[in-house]
């Protein structure tokens, strides 16, 4: 568990401060806040008029007043937190509630927050009548293929970037950042033309190719962090023991890299599963549509009574990434995957 992501976390920290260098160097930060502290100290002493006792007095003498003020502050903090939770949660609760409502309740003049006679019919209907079932199956195939291919292609490259000194690592990271700047509309037309040329427009294979390319830069960046966290000495020890490089890789590096491979695969899976724009433009045959596209089509033609199946389908479409986020929660909180998933 310690090798899980110990090093990537540190590395991503390094990356932030490196990017920070262009604005404020880390050294600058401490120096500046040091200044700031000095300034605030002068400020308080000037107001108090007791240069030496000032800080001490505020530390000891006014304990009760401070406690009361903190109590008030904590109350306000809980109030603010509650407001945030309402803002974040209520739309979700509404989706959940709508997906369990029978048509009768959906067309009612004043809908309730809790369904009065909850039903699973919407989930059944979403996957039988509305062709969402087939779209989900398409999405599953495309996303799985993208995940496997991304890992296959990214692993050797990530190993090379981590173990050999090459400028390509910087180039890859630069490309990750630079590619964010360009709107997809610039990419999509030439991609469409290229795919049509090789007969892959309007196919799942073409879509998978795009998703792999799209996931690659970040996958590379993430995976090479995992490789770096495996001490090079382990490989060297293995080769001293007479293992060939390939054997050392298979017996030593690969087992330790498994969590990184899983994380990369899951990242590629989720970004393919959620992707909308390329799928919308590249897939013209309705039978080949992926889940987001099918759901979006459904949006245009829904009547109030059909909101139920739509909500149910949306909920099911969220499940894979929800599972991913639940697993990755701790690492997300550390910020190491902060740039990972963006719709």
């Amino acid at each position: 568990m310690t090798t899980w992501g110990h090093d990537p976390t540190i590395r991503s920290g390094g990356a932030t401060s490196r990017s920070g260098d262009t604005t404020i160097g880390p050294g600058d930060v401490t120096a500046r806040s040091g200044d700031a502290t000095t300034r605030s100290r002068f400020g308080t002493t000037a107001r108090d008029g007791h240069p030496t006792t000032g800080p001490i007095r505020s530390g000891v003498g006014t304990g009760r007043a401070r406690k009361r003020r903190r109590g008030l502050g904590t109350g306000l903090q809980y109030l603010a937190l509650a407001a945030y939770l309402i803002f974040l949660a209520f739309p979700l609760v509404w989706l959940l509630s709508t997906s369990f409502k029978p048509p009768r309740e959906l067309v009612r003049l004043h809908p309730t927050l809790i369904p009065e006679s909850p039903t699973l019919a919407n989930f059944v209907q979403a996957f039988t009548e509305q062709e969402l079932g087939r779209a989900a199956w398409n999405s599953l195939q495309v996303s799985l293929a993208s995940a496997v291919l991304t890992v296959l292609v990214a692993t050797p490259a990530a190993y090379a970037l981590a173990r050999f000194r090459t400028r390509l690592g910087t180039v890859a990271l630069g490309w990750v950042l630079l590619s964010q700047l360009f709107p997809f509309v610039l990419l999509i037309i030439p991609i469409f033309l290229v795919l049509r040329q090789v007969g892959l427009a309007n196919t799942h294979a073409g879509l998978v190719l795009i998703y792999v390319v799209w996931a690659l830069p970040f996958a590379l960046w993430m995976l090479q962090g995992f490789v770096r966290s495996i001490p090079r000495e382990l490989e060297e020890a293995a080769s001293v023991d007479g293992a060939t490089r390939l054997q050392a890789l298979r017996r030593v590096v690969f087992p330790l890299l498994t969590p990184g491979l899983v994380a990369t695969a899951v990242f590629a899976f989720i970004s393919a599963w959620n992707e909308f724009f390329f799928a919308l433009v590249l897939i013209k045959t309705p039978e080949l549509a992926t889940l987001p596209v099918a759901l979006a089509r459904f949006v245009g033609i829904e009547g109030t009574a059909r909101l139920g199946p739509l909500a149910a389908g949306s909920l099911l479409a969220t499940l894979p990434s929800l599972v991913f986020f639940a697993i990755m929660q701790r690492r997300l909180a550390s910020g190491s995957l902060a740039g990972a998933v963006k719709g």
Partner: protein
Amino acid sequence: MTTLTVRPAVDRAPRRRRRRSDRATVYLLLLPSLLPVLVLSVFPLLRGIYLGFTDARAGRNVEISFTGLANYRELLHDELFWSSFRIGLLWAFSVTVLQFLLALGLALLLNQRLRFRGLARVLAVVPWAMPPVVVGILWRLVYHPDAGLLNEFLYRIGADGLRTTWLGDFSTALPAVIIVGVWAGMPQTTVVLLAGLQSVPRELHEAAAVDGADAWQRFRSVTLPSLMPVIVAITSLDFIWNFNSFGLVYVLTAGGPGGRTMLPMLFAYEEAFRYGDYGYAAALGNVMVVIVVALLAVYLRRRLREANQ
């Protein structure tokens, strides 16, 4: 720094040969990644930029000719272009700023020792886990004129007069869509800021507290300066993402009513795939890049200057 480890002496002699074979290995290992990226990412991008200076149109075997700045002259006189860029900038600015302020507040709260912090942290990332299309559908349900949460809430609190078709009304459509953008983007910004907050050295806070700085002073002179690099990075990225955003608003309003939520990407999508005007759409894309780069340059330069003061 592991590269500096002492190697066994045996390795010394054939070093040059080793290095050359190393290089071959590196390229062999990188090729499966580089080739697809070159063919399906770098090349299309360059080609896309070029198409912006041509009269490329949809359809097979259409002759493409270089037309220089003709597309851009046409853009200058296109009412829809101007309105979509006004809307796009308004949308990107409002969403980025609101999202940042709300995320900063939430990150500060989640950094405190509060009860329910675990629950809040989980809830805070849920919108992030949803596909943009689903976020759009979700909020269509909230804004729905008859079966929607918002109108029902207004009815229950007796503010019946405020009920409206949120996404269909000319005056409410853009603000309604902006709120969805904030809701969808806030989690990621919160997580990034929270990570930044956790890396602020505790000693600095303690030193400031000993010196008698109150919470606000500590925030102004310790937290904010330490957090600034992170803030600059995430707000820049957020702005780019928001300005180039597509799926969310496509599902919510598809640019309507009457083009009131027609973001630049939606406009470009229509030009390219409804009217088949590839050259014109690519030109729009080029203008979007130039605008984003120019705005970022101004922003980063100002931040840099402030930082150097």
